[in-house]
């Protein structure tokens, strides 16, 4: 009988689940908003990923949870931190990458890894939501645009604007006043992307940026942030096709390894 494994990543804004087989091939995944109940969001993501993989719950031999709610996922047989899971996930998707920048819903991380996803060093900004997914959400709403179109709009910028703050609360008022002064939405949006990049580079330099650099987490979907980061770092950034599920994929691969080790 074929064995399947699942990883569940429940963060502050979104919950993801990934199903892999014994060879680590991805068979299905799901991304859902976390909402008020992280536990439930995790269960629903798992159910959806299973459905997409065409599998029953009973076919899953092991589940590992990650993310801020990792200790509260009923389905999981174990848990691993986001740092280890993002490293593992990126090592599978982009094996050459040596530095990972992960910007999630409420925190950002820089991780330096060796071959196979072994974590060499990491730094986190978990004290402040400036420059995270939540920051972009607030700014998109202040600009009156959708989160999905944020990046594309920002890439159409013409003028160079500089924001004086990256604090989510103060930046929101600054954005509101820039809009009322008549600045173009694209210019403000790109200034925000650049503010995130400047802040993230400071974090990344704490672990030492060794190329190739990969990016994971929901904010990696924002092309303007990725571009601003590339300019600030002075190197290209590789982004996997679905950057939001990297953590869940890593968790699924840990579930697979765990069962393999147990069978040895």
């Amino acid at each position: 009988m074929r064995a399947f494994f699942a990883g569940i990543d429940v963060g502050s804004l979104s919950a993801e689940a990934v199903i892999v087989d014994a060879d680590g091939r991805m068979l299905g995944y799901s991304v859902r908003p976390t909402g008020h109940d992280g536990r439930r969001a995790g269960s629903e993501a798992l159910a959806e990923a299973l459905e997409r993989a065409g599998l029953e719950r009973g076919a899953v031999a092991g589940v590992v949870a990650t993310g801020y709610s990792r200790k509260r996922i009923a389905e999981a047989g174990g848990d691993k931190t986001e740092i280890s899971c993002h490293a593992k996930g990126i090592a599978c998707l982009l094996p050459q990458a040596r530095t990972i920048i992960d910007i999630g819903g409420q925190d950002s991380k820089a991780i330096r890894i060796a071959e196979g996803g072994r974590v060499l060093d990491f730094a986190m900004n978990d004290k402040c939501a400036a420059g995270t997914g939540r920051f972009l959400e607030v700014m998109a709403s202040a600009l009156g645009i959708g989160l999905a179109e944020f990046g594309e709009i920002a890439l159409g910028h013409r003028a160079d604007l500089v924001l004086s703050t990256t604090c989510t609360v103060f930046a929101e008022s600054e954005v509101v006043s820039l809009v009322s002064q008549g600045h173009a939405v694209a210019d403000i949006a790109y200034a925000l992307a650049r503010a995130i990049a400047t802040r993230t580079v400071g974090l990344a330099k704490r672990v030492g940026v060794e190329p190739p650099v990969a990016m994971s987490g929901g904010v990696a979907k924002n092309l303007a942030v990725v571009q601003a980061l590339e300019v600030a770092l002075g190197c290209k950034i590789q982004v996997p096709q679905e950057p939001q599920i990297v953590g869940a994929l890593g968790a699924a691969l840990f579930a697979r390894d765990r069962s393999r080790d147990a069978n040895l």
Partner: protein
Amino acid sequence: MTKLASTSKMKEIMGTYYLEAKNAAHNGLKVAWVTSGAPVEYLHAVGAIPIYPENYAAMCGASHATAELLRKAESLGYAGELCSYARSDFGAEALQGGPLMGLPRPDFLVCASNICNTVTKWYQVLSRHFQVPLFLVDMPFVHDDISEEMVAYVKGQFAGLEEFLAEIMGRPFDRDRFSEAVLQSARATELWREVLEMGKARPAPLNSFDTFIHLAPIVTLRGTPRAVEYYTALVEELRERVSRGEGSIPNERIRLLWDNLPIWYRIKYLADFLANWGAVPVVATYTNSWALIGDVQLEGRDDLAGALARAYLSPFINRGVRYRIEYLCRMIEEFSLDGFLMHSDRTCKPYSLTQLPVKEEVQRRTGKPGVVLEADKVDETAFVEAAITTRLEAFLESVLCRN
């Protein structure tokens, strides 16, 4: 925490110490408030009772009594960026709060700048508040090595302290009692060093969290026979544990260093959390600072003031980046460590500011990973449990992966 028979003895002698200080005025004795790195041997020489507001702030933190004191300090106008020990101290004085309902009133103050420069302003505030004299023992920061000029300068400061004390006490400074106090201090610090070196044993018979607790007598009672007595017994107890192969945690797998001050209100939480992973800090830069003093004192019996000057210039917090890097590397080697924990204390800049470059360089030289935990020694609002546990777990996962 490791169950040590000495713990009850320590509580007893610390209780007696504070009780005596509280009753000092009735017994015709003088109380001096001093910083943790003050050359307290001079005070023992004149029979004054030294009281340590820093130790008291730590006690308040460990017994979760700080929040109210910090709120009070803030309402008095002290900003949240100021050292939380200082704020706790101001709040405790204003409210007469904390585990002992405040500290006994000082007759005079002695402040030494070898631990930070905040203390110089902190003690000026105290001096104005209590209307009592303050002596500032000015000590230079040691960027590279301790020079003869620094030693001569600090000896000059000590000479001034002698005069200050003679005037306050109304009698000449007693050299014989001074020699005796230095000798007692040297013995106690030598024993304290022995306690700390027990961490080299595998498994370690005690951990850094234990040493944070058993540190109290070396801070408050060094220079008196009580500290010597206490640590003689503690060394004995630990030797027995080592000979029985008894570790401080059941399954020691990961040996670590702790850098910076303790997170007083979460000692047990962190000890239990780490023990669950089989991880244990067995050496700390913080507790080692009081062992450095013993080092130099024994070398220079003929020039006690000079030896003391060297000793009090030595603490880790008074040393530059190069020293800190080399020191951590040496501890990692000598204590066979797997990695290091750095508590970045939000309101202790002189300890915390150098940590990132130190971490980077120590990792490069030793290949051992370190992790920074952002918190504060006594301000509980700076401790975010979810963030700390994620960092610690990620760090431990990577250490296990290497091992």
